[in-house]
Structures are given as structure tokens and as C-alpha cells.
């Protein structure tokens, strides 16, 4: 089996440490470079501000020819995030390209938080509220933010 996936992941890790994008962190779990835990901080001046959202990234030996499987461990309320934490994001699916490293994946998810894509709803309630009742939507997001502080699974 090729070790190029592991080599690339080591380099992604080094890059994430040396040149960390703001508002995201990530690291491989206990001696397993193929499984990562990451945290995305809710961007300031948005309803997501102050939230700490945990994610799990699982890589296969096909990385970076295939995207990792990525899901939130923290409970989320967002038009493009399924109830089980899976994310509906083009670059993790049909627009995946080996050009995206872990930094790019995490920053893309971070910008998805405040910039949902109503065209591909994964959570219909969040999607509806986002479009029809932004006030209520923001309130529900604030609830999730507060839960993210306790929810230390």
C-alpha cells in the first residue's frame, strides 16, 4: 500500500503548525496520522462568535486523490450540515481536488458557517429559518454556540 497519503498528511500537519490559518486548529489523534480531530472557532461578529466546534476527519490511503470523510462531533444547526454532523460542501464531494490540504478544508468549512448555500439544504429546518426567519435562525445558532462549551464529548 502506498504511503504517499501518510507523507502528504505529515506535510499538511507541518503546514498547519507553521502557518496556522486563523480560527482553526487540527492534529492527528493518538499516533494515528489517518484520523484527525480539528476545532473551528466561530468567526467574530457573526452569530457563530465564541463557538468551539469539533470535527473528525478520516483519511484513506487514497488521500489526496480522494477527499477525507469529515463530520462535526459538536451538535450543529446549519443549512448544509446533516443531523449526524456530515457536511454538504462541494469541495468535499464532487469538486474535490488534491490541491486542497487540511488547512484549506478547515478554512472552507469555517467560511461555510456564515455563508450557507441554500441550494443544497442538508437540514431543512435550518435552511427554512435561514431564509424566512433570520432572527429565529440566529437564536438557534446562539443556542448551539452555548452548547458547544459544555458539549465536551
Amino acid at each position, binding site marked *: 500500500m502506498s504511503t504517499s497519503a501518510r507523507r502528504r498528511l505529515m506535510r499538511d500537519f507541518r503546514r498547519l503548525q507553521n502557518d496556522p490559518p486563523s480560527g482553526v486548529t487540527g492534529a492527528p489523534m493518538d499516533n494515528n496520522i489517518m484520523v484527525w480531530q480539528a476545532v473551528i472557532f466561530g468567526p467574530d461578529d457573526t452569530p457563530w462568535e465564541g463557538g468551539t466546534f469539533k470535527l473528525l476527519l478520516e483519511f484513506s490511503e487514497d488521500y489526496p486523490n480522494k477527499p477525507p470523510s469529515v463530520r462535526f462531533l459538536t451538535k450543529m444547526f446549519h443549512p448544509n450540515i*446533516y443531523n449526524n454532523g456530515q457536511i454538504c460542501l462541494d469541495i468535499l464531494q464532487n469538486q474535490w481536488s488534491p490541491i486542497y490540504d487540511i488547512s484549506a478544508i478547515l478554512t472552507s468549512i469555517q467560511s461555510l458557517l456564515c455563508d450557507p448555500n441554500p441550494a443544497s439544504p442538508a437540514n431543512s429546518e435550518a435552511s427554512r429559518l435561514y431564509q424566512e426567519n433570520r432572527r429565529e435562525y440566529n437564536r438557534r445558532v446562539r443556542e448551539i454556540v452555548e452548547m458547544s462549551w459544555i458539549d465536551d464529548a
Partner: protein
Amino acid sequence: MESSERDQEEATSESAKKLQEYEATVAQQNAIQEEIKKAQPLVGKAVSPSALSPEYTDNVKPGFLKGIEYLSKRYARLRPVRGDGNCFYRALTFALLENLVLKLRSGDAAAAQAAKAEAQRLVDKGKPMKESCQTLLSLGYEEVSFDMFSAELLEALEGIETTTPESLEAKFNEDGGSGEYIMWFCRLLTSAFIKSHPSRFESFLIGDTVDTFCAREVEPLGVECEQLQIIALCEQLDIGVRIEYLNGEDFDASKGLDAVPVNMDGRQEAAAELLFRPGHYDILYTA
């Protein structure tokens, strides 16, 4: 209160349904990809072009069988390439490298010399590889995101004299292996050309910038290419190709199909001869 709870419940079950649908779609896509993977090698063994006939015996368009008959006379062999959306890039890179290998081993000193020079040109002068990497960096690509891929192409070109047709075939048939890296790097080279010549391409991109076009139609693995990408890649590598179009349309058998030259101005020889059928590319050999 009760009704809002019911609303929430309904919303939850609707979301659960969405997730199920999504998972079913992903599972189906994966199953199709697996099926293709099992049925077709990345780069198959060369066969006679007439081997395509059974696929078209019941086709209502007259041009297919007639075209295959023509191709069988014009070309000695056809090499099928896996139809996973990457076939053009794979067919082109394999044929380009294989042509160099075959010339180097042909026993014809002049041809071998020319092939050596061509490999050297691709590596350094004209510097498509190295220059291309500079272009990518200047366009804002991170070196870490492509250098593993460019290294494979450089290595293949630098090691061309010790490469055999068999070892090249093996290299390209490893799933996720070196050939796949080379194929993907060619996608990036295609992007590099399009992005560094926006004025030439923008008028063909309806509602897209060169950046959004490349992110959606060039860089993702498995996305099929069109004429625009073919021209861009050929120009970036400074090579020419010839493509036969077998699309089922009737044609004058005495004239044959029209092999379409791409970037062939001022060139005698194509770096690759390819066959297009709707949605797919394979490699052709005159000898």
C-alpha cells in the same frame, strides 16, 4: 407550543430523510465508480480498433460501425483507457510518455535522439515542467499542494531512457499510483494555462471567471474535459495532438473521418493520437 414541537419533529424527520437520500446517492456513486474500476484497467492492453464493434452493433447511428471499419484500416491498434472522467488526461500523458519510450527503443538512432531531446525539453528548456511550477506559484497555488504531483512527472521524464513499455504500463495501472499523480498534475497544468491567459478563454466561459471555471471543470478529479481544456494543456506543454471523432455521424467513406489537429501548427508529429467517442477518449496507434 404543541404545534411548534410537531413542526420541529417534522423538520427532524425531513432532515433524516435528506441524510438518507444523500447517503444513498453517495453509495450509488461509489458503486458506479467501483464497477468501472473492476471492469476497466486504468490503461488497458492495445487491441484492434475493430474490437469496438460489438458495442455499436445495435446503434441506430450509421457512423459508428462505418467509422470503426475506417479506423481499423487507418490505425493498427487502440488502447482503451478507464472511463472515469479522467480519460483524456490519462490517455494524453500515457501516450506522450509511451511515444518517447517507443522511439528511444526503436533502434532508429535519429528517432531516439529526438525523443531524448523532447524529454529534455519537457524537463527543462522551454521548461514546461519547471516553468509551469513557477506559473502555478505566481498564480497563488501552494507548493505543498502540487509538488508531489509535479515530482512524479519530472521523474517519469528524467527516467525515460530506462523505462520500458511494460514498466510504463505498470506505473499507470496502480490505483492512486504514480500515473494517477501525473494525470492529476496535467489537470493543474491545464488550469495554469487557462488562468495565465484569461483574455483568451473568458469569452467562452458563460457566467464563469477563469478561477471558478478551473475550480469546477478542470481541477477536480473525475470531471470530463472539453475542447478548451485540451487546447490549454497542449499549449502549456507545447505539444500537438490529433483526435479522431467517432460520434456516429455519417461520413464519406472515401475520405475517412477527420482527425482534428490540436496545436499542430508547424509540427509534423503528434505527441499523441487519440480517439474520441461521446464522453470518452482512448489512445490510437498508427503502427
